[in-house]
């Protein structure tokens, strides 16, 4: 695997929309060619090379390409946008839409990420070592097709509205989350190792949420359904099971109504 290192040298005055920082866009290109890739600073078209120093060269395919992003990229959006393979490592914190629409490969952010990370993610792995913003693994504004595959691990805390309209895949948050988890979801799994605020699983049709810590306010649409012993992400524990959201439509599979599941560790 070839490695390309891009280092922020001239910080943009406005936010940079750098949807070309992905193994797919870099594949088969030399450092000079990568420097010419288009980006937007605010509403003005620009090139990657204007802001980043680029060293190394990309592999022949996305799968053979690793990108290391260095320097202060807190004002850079869309890193790993639509990536299908390969690897991206962001050494610090970054802004919105990290790994949005990603389909494969591995993306690691060592710091925090902004909102809309992994929007409509289809596959691959996203690891956020710091905190995640709002709308992690959610659907794009207006859309009903959220995260449908792949895995997200947040080592810190996550914001609100994570897994909105989730269809599949898995989100693990080691810390706490804010309000709204898996709203409108029709599949997928979210594990919250810390505490959750309120409106957990609102309007959920299908899918599973595990909360290891506390839930400030339970949704009234969830109904207690006994206790179960489960092993979740390596932890064996007893969970209280709730089904819902009772206010939503639910499919029948083999004559049995399928509800959304909410498990709270006892």
């Amino acid at each position, binding site marked *: 695997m070839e490695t390309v290192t891009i280092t922020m040298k001239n910080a943009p005055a406005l936010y940079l929309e750098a949807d070309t920082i992905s193994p797919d866009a870099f594949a088969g290109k030399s450092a000079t060619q990568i420097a010419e890739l288009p980006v937007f600073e605010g509403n003005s078209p620009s090139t990657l090379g204007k802001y980043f120093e680029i060293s190394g060269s990309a592999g022949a395919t996305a799968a053979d390409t690793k990108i290391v992003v260095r320097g202060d990229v807190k004002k850079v959006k869309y890193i790993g946008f639509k990536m299908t393979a390969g690897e991206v490592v962001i050494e610090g914190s970054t802004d919105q839409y990290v790994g949005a629409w990603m389909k494969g490969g591995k993306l690691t952010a060592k710091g925090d990420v902004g909102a809309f990370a992994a929007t409509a993610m289809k596959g691959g792995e996203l690891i956020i070592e710091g905190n995640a913003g709002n709308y992690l693994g959610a659907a*794009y*504004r*207006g859309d*009903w097709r959220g995260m449908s595959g792949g895995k997200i691990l947040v080592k810190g805390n996550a914001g609100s509205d994570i897994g909105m309209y989730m269809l599949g895949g898995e989100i693990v948050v080691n810390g706490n989350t804010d309000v709204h988890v898996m709203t409108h979801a029709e599949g997928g799994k979210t594990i919250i190792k810390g505490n959750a605020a309120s409106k957990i699983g609102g309007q959920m049709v299908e899918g599973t949420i595990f909360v290891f810590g506390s839930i400030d306010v339970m949704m009234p649409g969830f109904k207690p359904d006994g206790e179960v012993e489960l092993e979740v992400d390596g932890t064996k524990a007893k969970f209280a099971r709730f089904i819902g959201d009772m206010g939503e439509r639910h499919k029948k599979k083999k004559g049995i109504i399928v509800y959304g599941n909410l498990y709270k560790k006892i």
Partner: protein
Amino acid sequence: MSELIIKNGYVFDPVQGIKGDKKDICIKDGKIVDKVGSSAKVIDAKDKTVMAGAVEIHAHVAGPKVNLGRIYRPEDKLFSCTPTKGMERMGGGASIPTTFKTGYEYAKMGFAVAMEAAMPPLFSRHVHEEIRDTPIIDEGAFPVFGNNWFVLEYLKNQEIENTAAYCAWLLKVTKGYAIKVVNPGGTEAWGWGLNCLTVNDPVPYFDITPAEIVKGLIEANEYLGLPHSMHIHPNNLGNPGCYETTLDTMKIAQGIKPKNKFGREQVLHLTHTQFHSYGGTNWGDFESKAKEITDFVNKNKNITIDTGNVTLDETTTMTADGPFEHHLTGLNHLKWANCDVELETAAGVVPYIYSPSISVCAIQWAIGLEIALMMKDPMRCYITTDHPNAGPFTRYPRVYKWLMSEKARKAQIDSFKHKDKVLSQTVIGTLDREISLYELAQMTRAGPAKSLGLAAMCGGLKPGMDADVAIYNINPDKPVANPDDIEKAFSRCAAFIKSGVQVVSNGEIVNNGNKRTLWVNVKAKENPQVMRDINEKFVKYYSMTQANYEALGHHFVPNPYAIEVDATN
């Protein structure tokens, strides 16, 4: 104004019966003329096809429900935005493009005229503001009448004269073009949580049937002698077995003769026929009744239709058929918007994905094509997608490809997941007809222009007509190697001249043209009773005053083109 001459092209013009002859087209002062001087600018159309500008008879391109779609579907603009480029402003949207993109896309395909198919009269100002902001193409809008309280009350008492006087007034104040009817009575019944699924279901409170509304509005239309006929989206749209309601609706027109000075020969235009040609009793035994419908239309010369082809895309459905949209959101569980328009109509909006791997969608695709292929007279069958309901208008070139190439149809059928089901529920697999370029010109130019009463103005290349000329990269002397070439050629015309001004060159916009708003100005007999009724309804029921109702002046209709109708005799 400058002179133009288009040389060496293969011309297809049903108005003059020209079937691919090499002929020069001369243009002067925005009109087609016999000859021009030697200083005229020459456009070389060697090895290319030359047709009149196309005419869109039914699309939802301007107004509140289109805009509601734009507002509540930001995801429709995701990845479909184009930045400012040359003459073009930025645009966006796939199934519900912005007004600017709408104008550019139509022009790039060689369209000169587009009709907005459903204008809620109360919101005519909004409709006209969007029309104004849609560049290049001439547009008109059809106000909806089929659930209007005035119409329901007058027709309950068979008052054709009063209905006609009201229609004339409404066309004038809304700057409307024709009498549109959507789910007659059914949308009003929706206000009571009901619907009218047959032509004999009574409308609650008003105690009138859809059949009476349809008959009355046809008669009012002919009483006034409007350029277009009554334009109908019948009851029971989109349900298995709905073809019987469609036949019942068309039977109402039997025996009624057109009366107008525009050369129009039909008294009923049946729109998006595909959605009204379904057999079966449920989605499992859902089947095509295109044959039954086209047999009837083929025999009854006073009816024209448009197809409403499903293009197998993700799109946004929107209609004044409020109950239908509620039914649809129950089927696909996607977001639903609904609006009641006071005394006049209603509307609903729901996104929809016509997936080739769902058998119902694939059968719908087949039905739309069957209708076009089974209609004997291309002058009475026009190609539409009921944009954006069955697919975006930008897919017209793909529909042309399917109609013009049996090979392309076969390839599509072979790719369906439920191919055998499609072939058993339709006859698409047995149809070998391929629409010719001449027939295409009939179905997209001369035909719709005639049905709209615009035959003297557009849809042809006869001297005296508007100089709307589209030039496509198709050499009719050479066999089509790949059906995709048809789609490519019709997607981006080599050149398009609109009202004598070249607006497209090599598929790019080079001029923003001089778009007009077409409307019908009826001079009707004075009718004090109707005027008094209008005044009373505004005082008693409307949420706005009559003074704020009319779409008038430079702001709403900056470049009007009024078609004058004298109905005083």
